[in-house]
């Protein structure tokens, strides 16, 4: 039982990170019907920028407390990623808004490759370690171990998501966003500046990605120019699982995928009598994606219908 609980904790923490990243996909998809392939890379840039700032502050003569340093790192990473998100939308996606479907997708892949390689040129190919400046405390619950960082990640991402839901459903801006998602043309007739709404959506998603990036970096204690890619893909699978375009769906999908991966890697060997093992951990996300798309294309909580050829 303690092992099962531990796997559940592992899965929920991993899942809340997936969920944060999945929100960015889901928001952009909800409005533009575009998979922003570069979203995972924005997460990576967030981790890298905050790490650079943190290392700079540690190296400086200022004697700041650990939490403060991390906070400063996050505060730099968020605007940096917001600017990046804005720039990407402006340069790579907006000129193609009315082009054939294939075109923005290929650009998105291009942006993703460019960001990865620019990050590699700046920060190098090696894994960069995140300094351990926040003291880690570990707690025992029913034989399972959980750290203060894990609890923090789980609660903080929950709060962020709740805030986003409130923003979309309770504010004027949120209403404009939902209107744009339903029909950009009618929204603009109603006086909504569609271009601004799209830009702000990208900026919001990028801010969440930046926070997710810092969390991933701090949790695993490292950052790498390639870290965003697989994370982004899995987060996308999570968004589809929950129902793409649906914010609550992205959260549910993220948490579920995290738990599926964790329990899957932990128990697949026993379930299949040793025939399959943890070699297949990375297969689960894609299998989930294919199964959902075949049997329930609108996802668990989906609003949008996937098929719109």
């Amino acid at each position, binding site marked *: 039982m303690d092992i099962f609980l531990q796997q559940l904790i592992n899965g929920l923490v991993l899942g809340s990170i997936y969920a944060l990243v999945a929100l960015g996909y889901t928001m952009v998809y909800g409005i533009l019907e575009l998979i922003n392939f570069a979203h995972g890379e924005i997460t990576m840039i967030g981790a890298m920028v905050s790490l650079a700032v943190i290392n700079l502050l540690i190296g400086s003569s200022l004697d700041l407390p650990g939490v403060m340093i991390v906070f400063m790192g996050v505060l730099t990473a968020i605007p940096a990623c917001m600017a990046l998100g804005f720039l990407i939308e402006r340069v790579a996606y907006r000129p193609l808004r009315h*082009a054939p479907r294939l075109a923005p*997708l*290929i650009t998105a892949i291009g942006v993703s490759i460019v960001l990865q390689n620019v990050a590699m040129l700046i920060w190098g190919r090696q894994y960069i370690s995140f300094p351990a400046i926040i003291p880690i405390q570990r707690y025992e619950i029913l034989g399972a171990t959980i750290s203060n960082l894990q609890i923090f990640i789980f609660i903080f991402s929950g709060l962020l998501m709740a805030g986003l839901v409130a923003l979309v459903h309770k504010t004027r801006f949120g209403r404009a966003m939902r209107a744009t998602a339903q029909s950009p043309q009618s929204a603009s007739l109603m006086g909504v500046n569609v271009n601004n709404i799209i830009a702000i959506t990208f900026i919001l998603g990028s801010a969440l990605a930046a926070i997710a990036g810092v969390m991933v970096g701090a949790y695993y204690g490292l950052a790498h120019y390639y870290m965003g890619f697989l994370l982004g893909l899995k987060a996308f699978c999570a968004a589809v699982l929950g129902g793409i375009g649906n914010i609550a769906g992205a959260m549910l999908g993220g948490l579920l995928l995290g738990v599926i991966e964790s329990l899957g890697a932990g128990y697949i060997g026993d379930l299949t009598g040793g025939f399959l093992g943890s070699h297949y951990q990375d297969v689960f996300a894609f299998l989930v994606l294919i199964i959902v798309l075949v049997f329930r294309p609108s996802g668990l909580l989906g609003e949008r219908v996937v098929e719109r050829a």
Partner: protein
Amino acid sequence: MSQLFSKNSPFLARWTAFKHDRRAAWIAFVVVGALLAALPFLVELGLGRSWVRVLNFTLLYIMLALGLNIVVGYAGLLDLGYVAFYAVGAYCYALLASPHFGLHLPFWIILPIGALVAGLFGILLGTPTLRLRGDYLAIVTLGFGEIIRIFLNNLNTPVNITNGPQGINLIDPFHIGGISLNQAHTIAGITLPSTYNIYYLFLLLTLLIIFISMRLQNSRIGRAWVAIREDEVAAEAMGINTRNIKLLAFAMGASFGGVSGGLFAGLQGFVSPESFNLLESIMILCMIVLGGMGHIPGVILGAVLLTVLPEALRYMGDLQRYLFGSVIVDPADLRLLLFGLALIIMMIFRPAGLWPSPQRSRELSDVET
């Protein structure tokens, strides 16, 4: 440049007249045939024999790019896991002609088998994804490519099928009857080293694939693909069975990939899962996007450019050393950055590619206005 190709330039008029002259076409055919036959000799003379090997890889990538072109260029289905079919073809060859299972079939039996198996995998991928829009399809195919690679990497236990991460070694070289293409042969006083023999084999198959691609493009099927690409609902309304036609695109594209994979295995003598990663898929996609989606000469141009580019990039290091005294940016690091930039810039400024098909560029320019 633009003036040269504008609609009423005298150059274009002469060129069109030339194109429609049957005699000129025959002369061009003979000249090109002779040049292609002499190409390895010319390349060796100018650049050394290792470039003949580069030439062989170029042909291999032309075949791969033409296969992906059917799926992406003709039918408009973005496939990011194309390398899976390449892998399937390569492993088919490796399993049927190596000491791993003790089978040693000749290549002219294995290549069709590889094409068939890869085609079946194409249908396997196509069936669940038929209903998906372009962007979902991209992610699912990407996942499919990864799944195939993960399975190839892990199917060494409990039963050793693929030999896992160690790959399969000592794969038989190409041989016809008792004649191995891996040895030098003297025909009519001309000695042909192994790379030359392989060049001619690859050339033959490349021409075959170009021929099939051309015939497909102008056939009913080819037109149906284009119809689906442009508007699936309208295509269905016109009585096209979109399901079968899409599956056919997947199967055809995959079978070209399977043939190329087989050739890769026979050429290298060693296959392992790490050769079939996502980057390879993206590189092949770059080739057709850069050259011109759906346009055979464009795709060939793209494949040639991107195979020769990394070789050319080697000189960038020397250039930097000459200019700045040291290598500032590692040219190998620039390769992917340039690919990514090329994808973005092409899509924004020249979405039909460097050498677009006349029809396609018309379509795309219409859409933009």
